[in-house]
């Protein structure tokens, strides 16, 4: 009797029924949550490998980008392209779209790159004087890098969300398995025990009553017999008296 907290429910058939129903509900919930946790975990494991791979890819693409940028610097021969690019930034031509994805009932945000061609046109005019083609090549390299990065961002957010969700689900599963279900089982055990005890008491009581009744009946019978015997006692009137002649 571990953790019923002192107060016990009334031991009768009705409470037993409610607790049995609760036990059924709890074990069903436990099974479902366990399934959910396993589904999340399998997805999580698949994510890990993807994250490492994409991380490597991002590193590579940024390295390519840095190299391309160095080439662009060289091609533009002295023009400070960096500051002119920073100055030109006004409206993004690359934006992301976020939409939810569903994994075992958990909504996970997924990012997607959106490109706006009309905004890109502004960038095309840059570096027309010198090294425009190289600059465009650099732009493409960086666009690829951005795509990789956005993919990595999706994976990373999914990783975070799943991590939290798995923690939460495991906590629930463990709470059900080690606290709630044992507690309900405990109470059911207590109630059945108590009801058995009551039944035994009742049986014993009935037995006692019957015994007493038997004794009483026996006594009454004896008394009655005695009475009858008393009645049967020969009356003096019926006795033959030798002295009476007629």
């Amino acid at each position, binding site marked *: 009797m571990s953790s019923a907290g002192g107060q016990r429910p009334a031991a009768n058939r009705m409470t037993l029924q409610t607790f049995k129903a609760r036990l059924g509900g709890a074990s069903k919930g436990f099974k479902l949550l366990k399934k959910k946790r396993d589904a999340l975990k399998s997805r999580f494991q698949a994510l890990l490998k993807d994250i490492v791979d994409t991380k490597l890819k991002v590193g590579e693409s940024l390295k390519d980008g840095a190299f391309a940028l160095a080439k662009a610097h060289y091609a533009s021969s002295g023009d400070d*392209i960096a500051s002119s690019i*920073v100055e030109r930034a006004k409206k*993004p031509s690359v934006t*992301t779209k*976020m939409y939810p994805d569903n994994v075992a009932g958990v909504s996970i945000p997924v990012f997607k790159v959106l*490109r706006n061609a009309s905004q890109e046109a502004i960038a095309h005019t840059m570096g027309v004087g010198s090294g425009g083609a190289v600059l465009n090549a650099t732009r493409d390299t*960086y666009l690829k890098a951005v795509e990789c990065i956005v993919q990595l961002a999706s994976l990373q957010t999914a990783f975070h969300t799943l991590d939290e969700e798995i923690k939460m689900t495991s906590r629930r599963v463990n709470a059900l398995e080690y606290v709630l279900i044992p507690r309900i089982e405990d109470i059911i055990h207590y109630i059945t025990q108590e009801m058995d005890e009551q039944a035994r008491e009742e049986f014993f009581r009935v037995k006692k009553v019957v015994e007493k009744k038997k004794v009483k009946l026996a006594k009454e019978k004896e008394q009655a017999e005695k009475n009858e015997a008393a009645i049967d006692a020969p009356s003096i009137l019926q006795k033959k008296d030798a002295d009476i002649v007629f």
Partner: protein
Amino acid sequence: MVKTKFVTQSDMKIGLIGDEDTVTGMLLAGIGHVDGQGKKNFLVVDSKVHIKDIEEHFHELTARKDISMILITQDCAELIRRAVDEFSHSAQMIPTVLEIPSKDTPYDPRKDGVMQRVAFFMPSAMASLGVEI
């Protein structure tokens, strides 16, 4: 433990904090955004920028609703490591903070909070990124 429901949202920008070359490259790709008040979604970090300014900009970016992810080069992340870690441990999922390698310093997955967590579940992760634990 906030149960967040993600809704579809488009036209989200990418925040960026990094050295000049990284920022230039990314802006060239077209992620730069400057709004009417001259507020930028990127920050060029050089020797003149104060750490406090980086941190302030980082918080500003995390508070914005139209930012889906914040790219931060690892050496900048190192400067404001406390703020980055604090954000990644909070319940807020959007924006996502991504640590990217910068041009000058090689990427070290041991410093990246996400990679630490990944390596916790997958011990071979660090090795495949070329780092001994």
